């Protein structure tokens, strides 16, 4: 039998590896399954909550957006808001849940060894399931508004992935801080609340940029969710959603930078989490 020889020493540092994830695949699935099952147990409406929550936000912000922008086509406006809102909620769930995932599962890794990255990854799976359920809303709105789909729809999964990357990168960074400073639990919701108003959720990117001095444009586009949401709208509605390809690229670069920093930071401290929890 081929047996691995394992060495434990103080300088041993691990880094993200697909092998770890493949080896612990069933843990990943079971943790996600647990979170999902537990969340809707003993809830009368059960899984319906995955629909009701985003639906309420879409109704409220869709209405506000229609009133403010005086758009003639209410239904189309709702589809726009819905697509951005769903993606934003995916981001916000991933960011928030990942940043709390490590401390809320500390009872596991303080008793058994496994690659800790499995925990945030399983959290993402749960968020994605919720997201795909909530996509039903978008489908219904598409039918009501009579929008037709373009060939660009094939890019949609890429921008869903980009959204997850944004949430994961930031989430890992905050999850690491959270191990020592529990203030994170309060800071993240504040960031998210504020963030929604500087992200093209209720209005399009051009609505914001038209009302800003041009030197502020690049600052606005440093927000990694600008690229994801604009890209997603491009995939769903076609051409004019991406306001400026350079701004768009800038935003996408920031996404990957955040992911890199998040992973790097997470792995720098991962081995010592248990001593600080």
């Amino acid at each position, binding site marked *: 039998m081929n047996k691995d020889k394992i060495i434990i020493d103080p300088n041993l540092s691990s880094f993200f590896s697909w092998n770890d994830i493949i080896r612990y695949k069933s843990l990943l699935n079971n943790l996600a399954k647990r979170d999902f099952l537990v969340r809707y147990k003993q809830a009368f409406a059960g899984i319906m909550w995955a629909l009701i929550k985003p639906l309420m936000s879409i109704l409220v912000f869709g209405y506000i957006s229609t009133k403010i922008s005086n758009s003639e086509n209410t239904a189309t406006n709702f589809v726009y808001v819905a697509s951005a809102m769903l993606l934003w909620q995916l981001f916000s769930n991933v960011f928030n849940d990942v940043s709390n995932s490590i401390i809320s599962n500390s009872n596991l890794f303080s008793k058994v*060894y496994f690659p800790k990255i499995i925990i945030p990854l399983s959290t993402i799976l749960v968020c994605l399931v919720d997201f795909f359920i909530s996509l039903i809303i978008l489908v219904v709105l598409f039918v009501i508004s009579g929008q037709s789909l373009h060939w660009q729809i094939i890019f949609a999964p890429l921008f869903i992935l980009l959204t997850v990357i944004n949430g994961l990168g930031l989430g890992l960074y905050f999850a690491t801080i959270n191990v020592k400073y529990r203030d994170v639990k309060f800071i993240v919701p504040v960031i998210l609340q504020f963030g929604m108003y500087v992200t093209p959720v209720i209005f399009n990117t051009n609505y914001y940029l038209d009302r800003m001095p041009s030197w502020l444009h690049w600052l606005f586009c440093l927000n990694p969710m600008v690229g994801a949401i604009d890209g997603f709208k491009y995939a769903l509605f076609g051409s004019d959603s991406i306001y400026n390809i350079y701004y768009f690229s800038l935003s996408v670069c920031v996404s990957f930078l955040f992911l890199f920093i998040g992973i790097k930071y997470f792995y720098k401290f991962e081995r010592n989490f248990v001593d600080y929890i």
Partner: protein
Amino acid sequence: MSKNTVIKVENLSKQYLLNKGGLPKSDTLFGSFLNGLRNVKNITSKPQTEEFWALKDISFEVEQGDRVGIIGRNGAGKSTLLKILSRITPPTKGKIEYTGRMASLLEVGTGFHGDLSGRENIYLNGSILGMHKHEIDRKFDEIVAFSEIEKFIDTPVKRYSSGMYVRLAFAVAAHLEPDILIVDEVLAVGDAAFQDKCLGKMNEVSTKEGRTILFVSHQMAVLSALCNKSVLLEKGQFVGMGPTDSIINTYLHRGEKNTGQNYDDSAPVKGAKLKIRSVRVLNHVQTTVSEINNAYKGFIEIGFEVLEKSRGYDVSLELKHLQYGTIFTTCLKDKDTEGNDNKVWEKGLHKYSIELPMDLLREGEYIISAAATIPKVEVLDVFNYDTLFSILDSTSPVAKTTEGRNGAILPVIEWKKTDSVII
């Protein structure tokens, strides 16, 4: 590393930093921000921390198929060692090399979720312990059978009794197939029959399948039954490694001195009704001793002060053999010779003594602990000190023949020849 060595621990050390005076290290971001500001003002003062070595320069090797016990008092570093071995926390210095798949069982039922059914928890817990889905599928029926909870497998575990919970949890762990298994005192839970079953299972996987086991326990009887070798730790230092019985012997003879007496003169807690003042071991001429020869009589005397005149008080003494565990507990009210049951206890010091059943007790080291209660109502006082003494054996058949013999007590029983014809 010799051919059969599966674990090699070299100069392993683990340091923790303890805060001590000075600027406190803050646990909130804002607090540490403020500390940061103070530090800028007062650059020379570093936050004062004290180094604490939970483990210091531990080295040993374990061969394949060994069942190694890890022995030591509380705070000796046993759990830290297991945590480093199971890769939960990194060492500060030194290194460990091991070959094969390792699984650690520092707790039974890690990750069990009350809302999930037994079935779902088997999969969850199994995967946390490092089993693959197909492995769990294959062993599912065996696990359920071992845990004896077939009927309740689809019931949420929050509705289980604690016994069922532990049985299910251990059943999952028992069906792991690691090359090296690390177990931390998890057997302390569960009833005696189930403990035996678990020990049997561990023995089986080790002897039949050649797996290596590292096992922490405070129960010397369990250790000597299961482990062929043991490591002794004391205050983070390595003391020795060798055959379990000789290590247990070393362990029992280190540290606390036998004095045969303990006194407590401290002021009673406000509102206390009774306080135990003394426990002494007396020999046949009523002298305080730390050793009793079993050829003579032996007594334990307890003194307690009644602080509130009342009725219903009861005082108990527990006799514990260091290796075999509790031998018996006896209570003042057991034999109602003086009408103690309804006696009104006057304020002041009362003294009682019991005679030890010397013809039953085997040689070895004993601990006496004492407590006072109003039965089924409240605990009045638990004596803060464990009183140690030893019994020397000069009369029993074992002493005469110097043979070893199992059992927590050593009664000398007469054998009678019978004429029965029934086989």
